[in-house]
């Protein structure tokens, strides 16, 4: 008999949710996390869409350490030291929340522990334990073997578990983008005042423009209770040959973003308390991951359930939903005593009825946004057009139509393709 019914590798949202659901059903679950504590080193931009976690913990935000409910969505175009912001205000309905991973991941892991899972931190898993072509457990650091009926790989975007089990190819430079993020502390009232928020409400602000020098990507700001999460996401994985170059470039762009007059005013007097960076695998790569094999399933980022929209990344909600589906399939497999790939294929079946469709829609939107002009020409034209509309000087004003035509032709864009681009941008939002 194996040491545990289930071993879960990684205590991010995917791992903790899978651990929680299976421990609650009475299975013996061991969750192994590399970080000192769950969430200790985990980063993300800043917003969790609620739908999937709500299925597990209804109205979780009343109990979970979330920061603010997002009710203000801002899309910004930056050009030089000028900028345009478009703001959407919505009613609070529990749709999405900003949060900080260190606290949130720990809360989820505690949920799993309270349900009976053994969560052990500070331990790295080297890979799956494979016997006769099937996964029968894990190999932990120090070459220690531990057996399980089923292993759940929830070890994030780089997933060595999936790679070593032959479920995904090795990641190469071309397959990823990079995200960098800072947490800047500001008093609660200052945040609410500057971002125009009432108590407990939050803002999600995205910016594109010449900031990224033509590279697909941009900057983001999410408001927390007493800090803002600010950062940039860029497709520079393929451009840079060295890690040090990437991190210098990311740092420079982040500084540039922070010092833009429109952004600076949000941050004045703030205190930098945290800096982190993380890779983001690209959609094309993530599409190629297989989800299960004999004795193992892959969930969350490890399975490629993450979408890079250019400026923002979305994956927490998919991680949680995939863990729910996996727990369901693993439960059936354990109950029937058959943990073969065939039995575990139920996981993919459950997903294809729901989440995979949503994911595919999101991925298609991303494909549409591949157009680099969305990140350079469009922001520039937006800023210039509004300037043209609003600024008055001693020169006679051209009419808007001929102004736009001229601007577009300077960018080398025909009116038709401008309309198409606009349509694409709208569809993908």
């Amino acid at each position, binding site marked *: 008999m194996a*040491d545990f019914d289930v071993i879960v590798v990684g205590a991010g949202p995917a791992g903790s949710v899978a651990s929680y659901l299976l421990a609650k059903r009475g299975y013996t679950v*061991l969750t*192994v996390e590399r970080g*000192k*504590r769950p969430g200790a080193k985990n980063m993300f931009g800043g917003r969790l869409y609620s739908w999937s976690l709500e299925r597990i913990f209804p109205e979780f935000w009343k109990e979970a350490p979330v920061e603010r409910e997002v009710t203000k969505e801002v899309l910004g175009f930056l050009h030089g030291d000028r900028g345009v912001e478009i703001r959407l205000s919505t009613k609070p309905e529990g749709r999405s929340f900003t949060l900080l991973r260190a606290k949130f991941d720990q809360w989820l892991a*505690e949920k799993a522990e309270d349900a009976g899972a*053994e969560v*052990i931190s500070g*331990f790295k898993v080297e890979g799956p334990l494979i016997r006769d072509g099937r996964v029968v457990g894990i190999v*932990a650091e*120090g070459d*220690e073997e*531990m057996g399980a009926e089923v292993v759940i790989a929830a070890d994030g975007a780089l997933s060595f578990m999936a790679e070593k089990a032959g479920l995904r190819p090795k990641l190469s430079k071309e397959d990823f983008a990079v995200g960098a993020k800072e947490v800047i502390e500001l008093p609660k009232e200052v945040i609410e005042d500057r971002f125009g928020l009432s108590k407990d409400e939050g803002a999600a602000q995205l910016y594109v423009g010449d900031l990224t020098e033509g590279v697909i990507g941009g900057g983001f700001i999410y408001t927390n209770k007493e800090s803002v999460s600010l950062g940039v996401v860029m497709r520079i994985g393929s451009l840079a040959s060295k890690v040090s170059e990437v991190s210098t470039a990311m740092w420079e762009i982040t500084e540039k973003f922070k010092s833009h007059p429109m952004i600076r005013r949000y941050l004045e007097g703030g*205190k930098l*308390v945290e800096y982190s960076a993380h890779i983001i695998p690209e959609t094309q790569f993530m599409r190629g991951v297989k989800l299960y094999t004999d004795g193992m399933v892959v969930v969350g980022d490890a399975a490629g359930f993450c979408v890079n929209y250019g400026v923002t990344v979305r994956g927490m909600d998919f991680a949680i939903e995939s863990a729910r589906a996996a727990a369901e399939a693993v439960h059936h497999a354990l109950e029937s005593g058959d943990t073969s790939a065939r039995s575990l294929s139920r996981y993919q079946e459950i997903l294809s009825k729901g989440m995979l469709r949503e994911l595919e829609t999101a991925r298609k939107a991303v494909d549409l946004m591949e157009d680099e002009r969305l990140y350079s020409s469009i922001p520039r034209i937006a800023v210039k057009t509004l300037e043209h509309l609003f600024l008055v000087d001693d020169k006679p004003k051209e009419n808007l139509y001929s102004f736009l035509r001229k601007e577009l032709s300077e960018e080398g864009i025909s009116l038709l393709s401008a309309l198409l681009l606009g349509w694409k941008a709208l569809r993908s939002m």
Partner: protein
Amino acid sequence: MDIAVLVKQSLDVQELRVDQDTGKIYIEDAPTKAGDIELNATEEAVRLKEKLGGKAIAIMLSTWGSSGKRQKEAREALTRVLAMGLDGAVLIMGEGAEKGDTYVIAKVLAEEIRDKFRLVLAAEGSEDNFSGLLPARLAAELGWPYVAYATAIEVEGDYVKVTRSLEDFEEVVKVKLPAVISVTQEINKPRVPKLVEIVKAKKKPMDQKDFSPHVEPKLVIRELKVPKVERKQIVIEGDVEEAAEKLIQALKEEGVL
């Protein structure tokens, strides 16, 4: 022979956040863990126990508050030393313990230890305060001999032979049991517990007791503050070579180079 190991719940000083402007130290936010030298004391206790039989028990008196978070951390720290091979743990925690000085803590620990153990092992100093006072105070409280800075320990019948590493020479002393000994990091290399040992450690007995001293502390900490570092704010100008030259000069003047 039963051995008690004093395991302090130390602040993880690497994760201690401070505000240079106001001098504030964010103690509540900092996580805690078992101190590193306590791992050496644990290792030594486990080795002695393996040789001589008997039990080795961790005793932790938590002084960084008694919130749920601190309780969880304390249990995790104890799980870690239990996984190294100790047989059980006692966790003393409660309101007021954060104000306890070594005088109060030694009294409380002495009560816990007096009739149950023959040998107490401790770290030469804790990782966060490093006052190094507690083992001596505890020994005084118990009326037992105390040997500090041990780099080797050997039990010979009713006696214990301790090697102490001093600045220029080594000293070997022999004391009668029961005794209190503090160890240095040179004494051994603590084993790294395996996953399976951590899993098992979670099932070992852990006794939680309330902190209830009969005495008042003699030492009161009024405030904890970061020492202020004044910046010199020298700006060096000129082209690269010139600036480098000036920088080297300035560093020499400051005695850095």
